[in-house]
């Protein structure tokens, strides 16, 4: 069953209310043939990990513009691992200073996408790096 679409969770952790980018990305990834679960604003790490687990997604993409990524993203990565979801591909998009990219990678983030990234770039990255669920 290799032809089934990859499933991607798009989440907005934390308190910033700017979800236009997340929605544009969710829509763009839909057009790229992914099944996109969009969970909306103000997600806690627990909510994101629960959604990832219940939906059995291949990818978790987080959009953060508030600067809280160094607090929230490692927490999501830790909880994914502790729930047995360490093989889920984690990506982050938004305003991420260059200095933070390495620590985020160490925490378990595979892709960091800043302003100007095209949807096609994100889609290609996911197709190249995600491992589809098997059962």
């Amino acid at each position, binding site marked *: *069953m290799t032809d*089934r*679409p990859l499933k991607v969770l798009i989440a907005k952790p934390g308190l910033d209310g700017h979800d236009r980018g997340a929605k544009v990305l*969710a*829509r763009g*990834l*839909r*057009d*790229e*043939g*992914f*099944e*996109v*679960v*969009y*969970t*909306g604003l103000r*997600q*806690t790490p*627990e*909510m994101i*990990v*629960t*959604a990832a*687990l*219940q*939906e*059995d997604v291949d990818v978790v993409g987080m959009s953060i513009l508030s600067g809280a990524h160094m607090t929230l993203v490692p927490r999501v990565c830790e909880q994914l691992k502790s*729930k*047995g*979801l360490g093989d889920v591909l984690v990506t982050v998009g938004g305003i991420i200073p260059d200095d933070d990219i390495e620590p985020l990678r160490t925490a378990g983030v595979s892709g960091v996408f800043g302003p100007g990234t095209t949807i096609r770039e994100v889609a290609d990255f996911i197709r190249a790096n995600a491992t589809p*669920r*098997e*059962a």
Partner: protein
Amino acid sequence: MTETIGTPAERAAALSSAARAGDRRALARLLTAVENHTAVAEQAMRILYPLAGSAHLVGITGPPGAGKSTLVAALIAELRAAGRTVAVVAVDPSSPITGGALLGDRVRMQSYASDDGVFIRSMASRGHAGGLAATSTTAATVFDAAGFDIVLLETVGTGQSEVEVAAAADTTVVLEAPEMGDEVQAIKAGLLEVADIVVVNKGDRPGAQRTAAQLRAMLAPPGGAGPGSGPGGKRPEVLITTAMTGDGVPALLAALDRHRAAGKDEAAPAARRARAAAQVRAVIVERLWERLAAPTMAVRTEAALDAVARHESDPYAAADALLADLGREETP
């Protein structure tokens, strides 16, 4: 890593017992197998189907924007307050062009992250046209066998004739928004005919009372005559809710429970019989297609399809010939 080791039957057994013991990740993985139609899913159904049958399967359907997801969220809150566990299968459409989908129903169903009594699963319709995904009924069976008290099947936003949910559910709730149409809309054939309960949501909007009154008059007229009282016809209760605030939701839950209790005598077995027929029929069709695509038959099948495509044969003659061929293969 129970899910990648062993035969499909072994993996299905491991996942099924883990899911029934409360392992949410195993449950999620089983649902993925079901969605992807894998060998594990088939083996799991052989284990789980006999263990299912006690959950109340409730279909929630209605036009886009009527408030289905918000009502499901309000029902979850009400059910959890009553100590009942609830699973949700929320279907959104797949793109016919790219196969992609935007599954947005969770947006309205937040705040159960740490509650093991709630499990929400979004499903893309993947080309299935009846309002659900082809695998939604099977997903509901998995939740049923995993011990959830109630399974809510939320359809895609429907038009007038996506009535499939009625076969999948014990109780079908059709949602309407105020001022969606006049009495003539209410007496057209289709969606409203399969409703066990009709809910006018957005009850705080002007026109909600009037819409409900019109629906009551047309669907269950006093005195008995009318579409609801015909042969096999239903006489749905008409309720008003405001899902955003929770107004009317306790009454809806009470109506669901009443419908289920009433159905225990006669209607539910009929609904379950119809569901069984649909499920077995789907498997028969699938099995026949598999046999027609098998190496011994594939050449003949392809030739028959080509002949139909060129209008040299017709679909009926081709189907009869292929079925006859299958029959001959069986009794050599």
